[in-house]
């Protein structure tokens, strides 16, 4: 049995949430950096037929696969989803639109080329929208798909976001089960840059089996590796999502989400090494048992600092953070690599 089979087994036991096909899986507004300026964002998660890789098993930490539709939405329904989502932008002046599908926006089995074009046209038409970011696996980044987007988005910025997770192929395969290689990512970035499409890489801090230190070092090394290939790096802190392989581990004391001190160190170090690279992190679920956390005292305070830094890219925000638990985290860094498969409880 391989890792994918185990994941698939878990997937099959989890029910897909029932929800109408003409509503997006989720929409929210937020703020992000656009060319050094803090800008409003509208994030839109399309409900599609789902990530092809996730449906086959897919990534160990990914629970988004249950956001997919139980029956594939019609083209009309997809457009309705867009319309409903955009209602949430009524109060915004200028903003970025971030599009996720829990899979790949550029996968035509999820969003077919016609619908994609329809949606892109609508985005281009809305003058408030300064930039469109779409998430996709690298295998869907081709000359054709890129061109089909750039030729519509003439006055709107366009960025593709790829969940690279790590530049280490062994970790990506044996821990995350991502299903593509660094070479595939690298190829996609080159294609994008040729088309003046910017690239954002999502990284994953502390996938399963890795110790706190191994996870931390992997991200620092990955940023060094990809600094020249991407315009933005966004680090996701692994959290325990329902119905995932990671959740099963966590329930059995076999996984602990990363410490927030780890991302603080990563941001501080990597930003110093790559001052011009935009490096951000949104500590989703910070402070909860399932999310990245320090101790109860400081988790929320540190998470807020990380968010502040992400919008300002100002590492001084991170430099004066402190708490008694930082000593414990340093000890965890020292020892968590010596536990042979059982993460340190804390």
């Amino acid at each position, binding site marked *: 049995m391989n890792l994918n089979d185990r994941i698939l087994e878990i997937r099959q036991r989890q029910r897909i949430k029932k929800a109408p096909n003409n509503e997006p899986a989720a929409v929210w507004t937020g703020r992000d950096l656009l060319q050094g300026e803090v800008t409003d964002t509208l994030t839109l998660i399309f409900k599609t037929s789902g990530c092809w890789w996730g449906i086959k098993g897919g990534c160990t930490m990914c629970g988004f696969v249950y956001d997919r539709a139980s029956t594939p939405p019609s083209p009309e329904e997809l457009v309705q989803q867009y319309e409903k989502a955009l209602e949430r932008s009524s109060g915004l002046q200028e903003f970025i639109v971030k599009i996720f599908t829990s899979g790949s926006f550029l996968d035509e089995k999820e969003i077919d080329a016609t619908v994609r074009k329809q949606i892109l046209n609508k985005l281009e038409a809305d003058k408030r929208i300064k930039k469109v970011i779409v998430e996709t696996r690298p295998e869907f980044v081709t000359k054709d798909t890129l061109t089909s987007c750039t030729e519509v988005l003439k006055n709107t910025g366009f960025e593709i976001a790829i969940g690279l997770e790590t530049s280490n192929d062994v970790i990506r395969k044996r821990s995350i089960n991502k299903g593509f290689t660094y070479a595939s990512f690298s190829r996609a970035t080159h294609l994008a840059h040729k088309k003046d499409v910017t690239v954002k890489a999502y990284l994953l801090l502390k996938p399963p*089996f890795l110790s706190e*230190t191994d996870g931390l070092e992997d991200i620092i090394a990955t940023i060094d590796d990809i600094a020249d290939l991407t315009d933005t790096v966004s680090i996701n802190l692994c959290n325990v999502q329902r119905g995932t392989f990671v959740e099963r581990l966590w329930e*059995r004391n*076999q996984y602990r989400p990363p410490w927030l001190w780890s991302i603080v160190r990563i941001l501080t170090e990597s930003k110093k090494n790559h001052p011009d690279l935009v490096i951000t992190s949104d500590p989703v679920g910070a402070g909860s048992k399932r999310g990245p956390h320090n101790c109860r005292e400081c988790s929320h305070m540190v998470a807020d600092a990380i968010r502040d830094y992400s919008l300002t890219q100002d590492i001084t925000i991170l430099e004066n953070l402190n708490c008694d*638990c930082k000593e414990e985290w340093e*000890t965890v860094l020292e*020892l968590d690599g*010596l*536990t042979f498969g*059982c993460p340190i409880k804390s």
Partner: protein
Amino acid sequence: MTRYFEVHQRDGAARKGSLYLNKTIPTPTVIDTSSLKPEAEGDIIYPGNQWHFGNGKTATQATLGLRDRVGKDKLIIMPSCTYSPMITGEVTCEKIDVPAEEGPTGIAYSERDPETTRDLYVADGIGCHEGNPRRLLTALIDIRKNIAPDSALYAPNIALPENVAMLIYLGVDILDTTRATIAAFEDKYMTPVGFIHLDRLTELPCCCAHCSGMSAKEVKDMDKKQRARLIEKHNIATLETEVALVRQRIRSASLREYVEGRCRHDPALVAMLRLSDAEYDFLEERTALFKPAALLATTSESLTRPEVVRFARRVQQRYTPPEKDVLLLLPCSARKPYSISMTHSRFRKALGKNLKLVQEVIITSPLGIVPRELEVTYPAAHYDTTVTGYWDAEEHRWVEECLEDFLLKHPYKHIVAHVEDEYRSICENVSNKLGLDITYTSDGNVTSSTSLHKLEDTMKELCDGLSYRGDYRRDMLKAIADYQFGAGSGETLLPSDSKIKAPFPRYQAFLNKEQLITLIPENGTIALTIEGAKRIIETGNYVVNIDNFVPRGSILAPGVIDADERIRPNDEVFICGDKAFCVGRAAMSGPEMIHSNRGIAVDVRHVKKL
């Protein structure tokens, strides 16, 4: 093959041994986890996880490089994938190609190559099972069964002062300080029975060098780092002291009793004790025939410990009573062997010359029943139990079951019970269940003169006209031989023309003036001479086959070609080789002799060159 670990002493599955590295490390031991780091100059080194190296090749090279750097007297643990227990064994890991011959090595159990024996195995992921007694037990037994007995077992990130006795009891040799250190950073002050949050302490209940002279308040007032380092030192001292005490208990062969007490503070540890007793084969194989220490029966779990169950099973499967018509059931006595007690002397005096016509069987908890002939064996003559007069229902059930089995297997014309109170209720229950008549001869006090007279009169009446040609002393030796070497061995060892000498209980049997056996009352076993051994060797029981050499003093495990799987530590064994025939005491079990490459297998007593 190089072997850097040796087991010196066993107490059940627990072992006392040595790791022969740069320094000799006595085990069981607690290692400082951070000393595993290559830069720490410790004797056991871990180059790092495979994730760290990126791939197997790099990891292999780094490990080989480390070997070159540190030399051959440090143990190197192979870089591991550190897969979680949920998938270990199912998902493959890259092999680290470092040979075991170039110096001491260790490997994660789940990543082992069955072809290569390592000096140390890491119970990887074991810490995840803490608090789940069934999984933890299954995992530990699985590992211990599948690795060589002379490999050390390291259980990382699990040791707490309250659980180390149990872990070592189940066969762990090496533990570490991870949890003690982390607890310190969480202000968890460890005690032998669990941690207490520093907040809840108004004094430090410890006399370690780090705590002494300190008040709880002083510690609370320290800054975080200083405080954590102090509590860490205390926690580690507490853990190490506990392990030192456990080493001492293995030395004195009384770890079981220690574990029975220590586990009480955690329902999960008690569950582990109970569940482990259900793993009878695993524990019994490792349990010595006798121990130098008394067996203390102070809990309901005493009824299921391997020595007790083994005794009952051997009575059921190996013991055949002499052919007699009258059975006398008696209560046990505090003094052992029972027959030297004041009460038993009086019973036997009342029987007078009818004594030899009667089969005596003693009823007792936790052993169930003890035929008189086996009263000197271990643990029949070596247990001490809590006496309050009350036997709980589980003791009743167990003892009744033992008595029932005996009465079903061995029918008697007359059954007399000179018993009272709980003993009587046991006899009555069994008599009702089996529909057997039992005559009771006690008026409520077994040593009152009325009771003793009634016993005397009853026996006179029942024994009238009966005769018995056997000799009690031979019956006793035969029964012990059967108990020790298997049913029928007594018949082989003690032919009808053999003679028994010496006063009770230090009997010796002779045949044609050649001594065959001696009974050693201290441990309740019989020791054989070469002449005696020659007689029993034909049965094939308790034989160890050795290579082509003449042993001196002791036989080492590598010299053993094959051994009877029934052999237990301290068993009397018969060594057969091309050049010699010997008698000795097993230092390890038969299976351990077969699977070990190091350590003393047998202490030889008599050698006959061939």
